[in-house]
């Protein structure tokens, strides 16, 4: 069963017809030609499909495209501005925060969301004082990024890259 939807993807308005079963991930990759979000597990367990959905990090594999008609989507492909890499992208390059690169677009979108959540003062599971402001420590970043798996295990460089981009 088909539905007509409109998505704003990396600043462009895109209209398309989707089967009601289509995930946002498949709509982006297969229908709109944006291979930046990756299909890892397709079950919400690996984080490779992470995008910014209406400004917040979310898993595009667990979102039905038809349910996000009108949504504003940013993928890792749309983070650069005027030819300048996003600070998180630059930190990943400078810190060598990847090996094969398959999880990287999801890691980067997740990290952009993590930095925004720090700026809003959101606590995490490892925040000692729930009523205070969380600090951008290694443990805080590792906990907040736990939904992004890296099978090359580049965490040893991913965590410092996110800390650096967050201004720690």
């Amino acid at each position, binding site marked *: *069963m088909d539905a007509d939807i409109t998505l704003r993807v990396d600043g462009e308005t895109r209209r398309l017809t989707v089967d009601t079963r289509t995930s946002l991930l498949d709509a982006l990759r297969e229908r709109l030609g944006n291979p930046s979000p990756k299909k890892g597990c397709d079950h919400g367990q690996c*984080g490779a499909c992470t995008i910014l*959905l209406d400004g917040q990090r979310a*898993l595009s594999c667990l*979102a039905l495209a038809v*349910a996000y008609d009108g949504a504003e989507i940013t993928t890792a492909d749309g983070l650069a501005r005027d030819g300048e890499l996003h600070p998180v992208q630059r930190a990943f390059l400078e810190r060598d925060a990847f090996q094969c690169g398959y999880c990287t677009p999801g890691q980067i979108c997740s990290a952009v969301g993590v930095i925004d959540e720090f700026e809003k003062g959101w606590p995490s599971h490892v925040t000692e004082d729930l009523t205070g402001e969380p600090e951008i420590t290694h443990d805080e970043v590792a906990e907040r990024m*736990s939904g992004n798996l890296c099978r090359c295990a580049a965490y040893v460089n991913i965590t410092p890259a996110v800390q650096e981009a967050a201004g720690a």
Partner: protein
Amino acid sequence: MKPFAYAHPGDVAEAVRDVAAEPNAVFLAGGTNLVDHLRLGVARPDLVVDVRTLTSREITDLDDGGLRLGAASTNSEVAADRRVRERYPVLAQALLAGATGQLRNMATTGGNPLQRTRCPYFQDVTTPCNKRQPGTGCSAVGGYTRYHAILGTPGALPDPTAPETCIATHPSDMAVALTALDAQVHTLGPAGVRTVPFVDLHRLPGDDPSKDTVLEHGELITAIDLPPLPAGARSAYRKVRDRASYAFALVSVAAVVHDGDVRIALGGVAHKPWRATRAEEILRGGPLTDHAVRAAMDAELAVAQPQPGVEGGNGFKIPLAARTVAATVRTLTEEQS
């Protein structure tokens, strides 16, 4: 994935009518569990009715000093809310112990308590499961039972072929905190509005393991109220799991301590969040010493039925539950003195 029709009605009343009119219809909110189940074939609806933008997303103060969580408020928003962090730390901690940042941004107050068990056999459509396909039997009995129930089960080694057998646990952390907080659930259904005490929302398998809750078909959670805690009350959530992050609970504990009284809810041990009423009665009036709490939990767990299984079964949960409750209460009483 089986084809389905999608509806995005104008308001909650229309959404309830839509689902009530179609026996094989489901509500969709954050979708973090349902969309996975659509893909796995665990859920096979003919109609999906989207309510994510229909219920309130607000968190509002109640006149009695409590808080109302709109059903569409996300797990992230509730955990970050200053009032929740200051007045109901047990709820903020439970939410932050669950899932991941991406999932918490999608999952909602109304949807989280209605997520289904993560029993691997329930999620595998090639195996018999009384919850997924009533009457087919239970594959978990004698199988991989590490994440399964020790309380509220039909017996020590239930008959895997019996249609009522189910040893699944409820996976939500949030629901354990809401059980300890005596939250109230507001619903709108085909028969109108009603309020269900959170402790009564979930059910034991009984003679129908396919039903997780007491909600009727077409009944929608519209908000969850947190009653005020007495002045000076302290609360905490502690979760024991196989990994430091992003894993379901082996055992979890939500505790509220006030004036020598304690409220205790357990996760990871039963088909529903388990309110330890027997232990609470024994401990009423205190003192909440380590020894007293352990003894009360021994009494609570006297009816526990460890499930044998591969990798040693789940008997470890009995001492683990008692110790985790004692440790959580100790933290709260030490803070108080």
